[in-house]
């Protein structure tokens, strides 16, 4: 151990001297080798494609546990290694993955899945009903740290093995979005045998997806390699993918421009504008998360009164937020973040609010604050768009007499304070976790103080509508229920929506077939990597 460290230090020293010798001698070896563009093994197949895709990713994972949704970048990576019973395709439809087919019983309480015959884990063992049961039992276990645990325990799920290739999920009550829960990337199937052999799922990975885990070089990169036994014929198209950690945004952008990497994630609005004028790159920009405010509705706070929250909704200059925080890229949200056409929504509430300072002042006076009040807004200085949004809200609210102090701690502090409700107002950039309108449950339901919901907000009508929506299966009836819900949600305004922002990736123009969907599915871009082709460049 010690020896090894000493050796590496000695090597570094030896190397340094080597470099110096190179410099002294004119350094002729450095010219002309720029074309390596970071590709370490530059074997090029004859068909004009390159066998390695280099992805510059903004986060180094803190865990590879596929049942934890820690952040979008990590999910992007894990989506290449793991697959669930069902999943979204690039048309935004749920399709079978590990499952071959499924049957839902007439009472909507039993979901029976038959598994594909040819699905194997990366160690070559077939995926069985036992593995499926093991995976979901792990998600629902008492000591589980799974992100979507309560989705399954809340529906009262039990998983039964019928035979080797058949597994059934029995629910305690009907659950309309249940298939969507199963389509979450965090509903991944893991191998029982592999887990019981004592492997660490947080630092290693073994699934049945298109790529198998090769290595995690800390601080540097994670390498995956195409799995020959993948159940989709001819996929993945590119043999190797390296996810190289580029935490600094400017450095990440430069790395793409100089060919160090082929694809980068989490490109800011300003950078997207710069990249768009460059014909060497392809920009993929989709409407992604939305920005909103949450309010601490604790008894005694001005925000406990829905009229004050509405006043804020009328006062915010949404166009100014888009201009300053998102470089003009984004779409103002004056109503509820459901796009017309989605699940029967007709767009009725798209202009529920408008920028109307008189109306805002009127509402404040009605609530008993004719001269305004002072409060704080929690945001972070780590992400400029969070900070800018807070500052625009601050100046907007000053116009109706609300004096706002901006608290801009680092991101980790901001996360902790948002989890305990330690704020009056908070800026959030978030999105529904599933497509179904049931996504709103976690945002609006009364209950414990948590992220994604306004602390101490509770409304019986909203709770009841959300419950009905989830447990009713008739689509027409659900549309009706959710229409009522949206109206009530806007009236109560525990969350005030500001705008949609873009989610963007940028690649070299030689990268082909990269694609992802907008809205909630923008967070599942990882599904397309199996079809990406890297042309010679």
């Amino acid at each position, binding site marked *: *151990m010690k020896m090894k*460290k000493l050796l590496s*230090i000695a*090597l*570094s020293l030896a*190397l*340094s001297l*080597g*470099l*110096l010798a190179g*410099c002294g001698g004119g350094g002729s*070896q*450095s*010219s002309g*080798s*720029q074309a*390596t*563009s*970071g590709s*370490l093994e530059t074997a090029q197949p004859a068909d004009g494609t390159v066998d390695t895709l280099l992805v510059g990713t903004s*986060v180094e994972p*803190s*865990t590879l546990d596929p049942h*934890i*949704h*820690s952040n979008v970048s990590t999910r992007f990576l894990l989506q290449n290694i793991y697959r669930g019973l069902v999943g979204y395709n690039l048309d935004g439809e749920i399709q079978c993955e590990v499952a071959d087919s499924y049957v839902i019983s007439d009472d909507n309480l039993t979901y029976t899945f038959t598994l594909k015959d040819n699905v194997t884990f990366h160690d070559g063992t077939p995926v069985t009903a036992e593995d499926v049961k093991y995976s979901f039992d792990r998600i629902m276990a*008492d*000591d589980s*740290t*799974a*992100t979507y*645990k*309560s989705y399954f325990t809340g529906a009262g799920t039990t998983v039964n093995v019928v035979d080797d290739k058949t597994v059934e999920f029995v629910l305690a009550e009907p659950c309309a979005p249940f298939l969507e829960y199963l389509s979450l990337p965090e509903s991944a199937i893991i191998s029982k045998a592999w887990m019981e052999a004592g492997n660490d799922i947080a*630092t290693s990975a073994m699934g049945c997806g298109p790529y198998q885990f090769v290595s995690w070089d*800390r*601080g540097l990169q994670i390498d995956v390699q195409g799995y020959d036994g993948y159940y989709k014929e001819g996929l993945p198209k590119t043999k190797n993918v390296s996810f190289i*950690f*580029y*935490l*600094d945004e*400017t*450095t*990440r952008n*430069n*790395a793409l*421009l*100089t060919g*160090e990497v082929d694809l980068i994630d989490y490109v800011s609005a300003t950078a997207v504008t710069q990249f768009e004028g460059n014909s060497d790159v392809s920009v993929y920009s989709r409407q992604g998360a939305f920005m909103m405010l949450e309010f601490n509705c604790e008894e005694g706070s001005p925000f406990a009164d829905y009229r004050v929250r509405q006043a804020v909704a009328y006062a915010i200059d949404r166009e100014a937020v888009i201009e300053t925080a998102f470089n003009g890229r984004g779409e103002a949200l004056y109503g509820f973040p459901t796009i017309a056409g989605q699940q029967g929504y007709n767009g009725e509430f798209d202009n529920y609010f408008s920028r109307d300072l008189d109306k805002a002042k009127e509402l404040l006076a009605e609530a008993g604050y004719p001269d305004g009040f002072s409060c704080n807004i929690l945001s972070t200085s780590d992400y400029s768009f969070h900070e800018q949004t807070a500052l625009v809200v601050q100046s907007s609210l000053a116009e109706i007499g609300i004096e706002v102090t901006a608290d801009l*701690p*680092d991101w*980790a*502090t901001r*996360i*902790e304070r948002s*989890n305990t409700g330690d704020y009056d107002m908070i800026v959030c950039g*978030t999105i529904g976790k599933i497509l179904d309108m049931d996504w709103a449950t976690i945002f609006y339901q009364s209950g*414990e103080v*948590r*992220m*994604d919901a306004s602390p101490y907000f509770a409304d019986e009508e909203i709770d009841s509508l959300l419950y009905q929506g989830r447990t009713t299966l008739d689509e027409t009836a659900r549309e009706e229920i959710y229409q009522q819900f949206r109206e009530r949600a806007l009236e109560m305004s525990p969350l005030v929506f500001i705008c949609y922002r873009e989610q963007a990736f940028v690649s070299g123009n030689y990268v082909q077939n990269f694609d992802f969907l907008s809205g909630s599915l923008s967070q599942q871009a990882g599904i397309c990597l199996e079809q990406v082709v890297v042309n010679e460049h």
Partner: protein
Amino acid sequence: MGKFFLKRILTAIVQIFVVVSIVFFSLQIMPGDPVLMMLSRDGSAVDQEAYDALEAELGLDQPVMTQYTSWLAGLVHGDLGKSYGENRPVVDAIGDRLPRTLELAVVALVLACIIGIPLGIISAVRRGGILDLLLTLISSLGNSVPVFVLGYILVLIFSLNMEMLPSSGFVPLARGLENHVLRLILPSVTLAFGVAASVLRMTRSSMLESLGSESVRPLRAKGLSKSKVYLKHVMRNMLIPVVTIIGLQLGNLIAGTVLCEAVFNWPGIATLLVDAINNRDYPLIQGCMLVLSAIFILTNMVVDLLYGLLDPRAR
């Protein structure tokens, strides 16, 4: 003599102990929560049961003093605990990253000496001339331009415009010497610039001092050639303070690579520490701080001891 050594070493140990204790307790006061950073870096709702389970797993539900004493007990046995995020011993995590930072720092330091010392001598010999003026100007620029500004300027020139060198990244030696060395050039030059400026100034002033000293003038009067006087007598006198500065700079360099590593995506201990802070990975922060402060304190100690050896007055 032995007593002096013992005293300095004991002082260093106490200093390190104080530093790590301060770090431990300030982490307790610092807002932010490692459990939340692992479960939801994006800021989406976290299941309370999942939170409790992970908190217990990481041992964060224990009282602070219990955590402190068990950490100290581990430290005595050379065990710095286990990183939350990396899920492996902190010693291993640092073992991977420290050599990369040392490599960068040592290369930068050697470059700085190669550039700084000769230019300092020229500057002193040509005191008051155009060249001296120019070098003084450049060296004050070197001292004042921040690493990240210089780094991005070099990337702009050598990577984006001239396409001569990779803009960033790190390739382990095992994956190719050439790729490794190419990616070392820009960060080490960036880091070397400021240090070279310090070395240049120190060389210049101590050279001037030694040129004007009582011991040098008679040598010329005695008839020794100019070059012989400079190379043999002046250089020897002036090198002592320069070597001291270089020793002290090494400690500064290792702690000061943070920005350079960030700009060039160099995965050394500085970026490890920054990530650990962002994720509130307490054992990893403590481990990095221990190592960095130990390097700093120990280099200072070694310089002190050397002085003690060379100059009895300092004991």
